[in-house]
């Protein structure tokens, strides 16, 4: 595992038959692009769920490659919890402009105001679960029949059994017991009126693959991922950034630390790690040496052993 840093060599035009194979990153890239193109071919109104995190950034980047020199033929959808890192919003707007793509925003605040969703209370209150309501409303309102996401199977055990083309019933629910078998690269996107699909083109990528790909392709990412100084508190072992949405307990005193984020979720629940990795190379070295999964810093997954499975069944990403 120490050699994980080895850069992938891009394929030189072959001189002999044994040269005709792809590096794992090129093969994963080719697979993801095949899936993205298949979505556009099979669905009438697809969309890309964009969170501002590195996985959906890679997905947007792959989408651009898939249709070049045409523009990406679907909008980016951002489910805005209102609790975003400012860096995420800044990056989102830059990327949308860069890609020349349409942005659709689904607002959790709006769902709350309309009484569609109820704000959680308590110290660890989060809008994470509320996103499901807004997401499903946004899909329905815009009549999206396929929503692509950057979820990966290595992230979580409920995701290990997810399909590339994941069927959702008319309530947006995932039924793990009744999934369609998925064979070869023949994807079945057939559905009845009112149903939709979630599609995960980078299902087979690991966290390391994503970082190596970002490095290989020189993809710009939000500043949050790089080491920086930030005002934080430590709660139940998690390093949380101070923000207007983080209620401090009486004994909690903010301090400054040199940190970075491994995932880019909602500000009040996304934990930072202490790190001085300020380049992609250093991030890759850190990920390689890390003994914790990236979701280990996510308070939303720690609620119960089956937190992800439960959220997915009800229509979560």
């Amino acid at each position: 595992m120490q050699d994980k840093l080895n850069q992938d060599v891009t394929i030189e035009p072959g001189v002999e038959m044994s040269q005709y194979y792809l590096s794992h990153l090129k093969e994963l890239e080719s697979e993801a692009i095949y899936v993205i193109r298949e979505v556009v071919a099979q669905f009438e109104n697809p969309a890309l769920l964009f969170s501002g995190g590195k996985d959906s950034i890679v997905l947007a980047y792959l989408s651009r490659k898939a249709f070049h020199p045409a523009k990406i033929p679907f909008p980016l959808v951002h489910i805005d919890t209102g609790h975003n890192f400012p860096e995420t919003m800044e990056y989102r707007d830059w990327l949308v402009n860069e890609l020349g793509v349409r942005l659709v925003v689904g607002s959790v605040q709006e769902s709350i105001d309309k009484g569609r969703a109820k704000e959680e209370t308590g110290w660890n209150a989060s809008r994470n679960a509320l996103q499901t309501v807004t997401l499903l409303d946004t899909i329905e309102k815009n009549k999206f029949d396929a929503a692509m996401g950057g979820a990966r199977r290595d992230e979580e055990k409920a995701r290990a059994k997810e399909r590339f083309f994941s069927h959702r019933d008319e309530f947006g629910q995932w039924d793990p017991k009744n999934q369609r078998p998925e064979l070869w690269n023949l994807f079945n996107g057939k559905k009845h009126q009112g149903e939709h699909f979630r599609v995960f083109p980078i299902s087979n990528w690991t966290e390391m693959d994503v970082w190596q790909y970002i490095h290989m392709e020189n993809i710009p990412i939000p500043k949050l991922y790089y080491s920086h100084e930030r005002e934080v508190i430590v709660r139940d072992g998690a390093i949380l950034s101070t923000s207007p949405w983080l209620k401090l307990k009486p004994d909690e005193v903010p301090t400054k630390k040199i940190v970075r984020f491994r995932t880019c979720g909602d500000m009040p629940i996304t934990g930072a790690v202490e790190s001085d990795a300020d380049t992609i190379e250093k991030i890759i070295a850190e990920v390689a040496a890390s003994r914790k999964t990236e979701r280990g810093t996510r308070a939303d997954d720690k609620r119960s052993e089956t937190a992800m499975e439960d959220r997915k069944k009800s229509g979560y990403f």
Partner: protein
Amino acid sequence: MTNQLLRFTTAGSVDDGKSTLIGRLLYDSKSIFEDQLEAVEASSAKKGFDYVDLSLLTDGLKSEREQGITIDVAYRYFATPKRKFIIADTPGHIQYTRNMVTGASTANLALILIDARKGLVEQTFRHSFIASLLKIPHIIVCVNKMDLVDYDEAVYEKIVEEYKGFSSRLEVSDIQFVPISALAGDNVVNRSENMTWYEGATLLHMLESVHIESDHNHIDSRFPVQYVVRPHSKEYHDFRGYAGRVAGGIFRPGDDVVVMPSGFSSKIKTIEFGNEKLEEAFAPMSVTITLEDEIDISRGDIIAKPNNHPKADQDIDLMICWMNQRPVNLNTKFYLRHTTREVKAVLKEIQYKLDINSLEKLDNAEQLQMNDIARIKLRTAQPLLFDSYRKNRITGSVILVDEGTNETVAAGMIV
């Protein structure tokens, strides 16, 4: 040095050590993170075990635990400095065949586990046959639980001989054997000190070095058109690119090509990928091809070479695996998906069912049940452009989709 991707499938029931083996591979290759290990330690303690049960690393969903079953294929990932691995982990219960077939469809290699105490059992035959049916190019037979037979060379050799005898009836050219103990770790990642008589490689070394470069067909050029790229922009006003994933052979700019089914010929102008222009493309690369001539090409067409193109026919012979709870009868209609094409198809004839334990052919079948493997004839509404599955796993495979429920009900391999 490039890291290649190796996809392999495992299958087995609870007691043959499959989960332990996968846990061992993940653990010894340091692909398990602290928080995952902590979760497994906690679960082990909760169950009252006084050891850490590595098999819990592949533990499934709540819905599965509630019912004490494993739903279907789970995918696991690990990497070594040499390769990245994707494991399609398939359980061995009632739906075994359907799951095995699903996991096997994308695999370069199958791991067959044999319990050294029991030798070859029904399941061994079944798994091996499915690997052969799905044309998985490589098999590694792991004779597991060697610790329970005192690491006895004679036990191992006897099993190897038996397997070789049986496998001569299969169509797998590359079969390797390794004696292991997944529980103790012998010959999985590290060489066993208990089996000095074994001179071969460890399992991980085999996985890292098996020759997979020839697993794709690089001879017969096939490019199923997936999507037509038309920018409609000022800069690229006349651009017309055919996006797709190479299914076989090698394409280069300047190559003469023929487009099926129209039969029109042209030359490749450029092969593009993002903003790069490529000198060649081969399977499984996703690229965009432009041609010298403006001809009408749409999704489902295949770009091939003159004198070497796929067959075009409406009567198709297939081996299929029926995957749905509801049985199927003659004259049932389906949607058939093949490469990037979808056509209607009707089940014309069931030639025979195959007993996958004995490989015996059962004639006069009128109905197929879940997990049945059968040789059938389909008639399609429009011609398919295909190769035999033996020649090309991409242009030789189909799925059948139920017209009413939209479920994927069968996997087919064109004979």
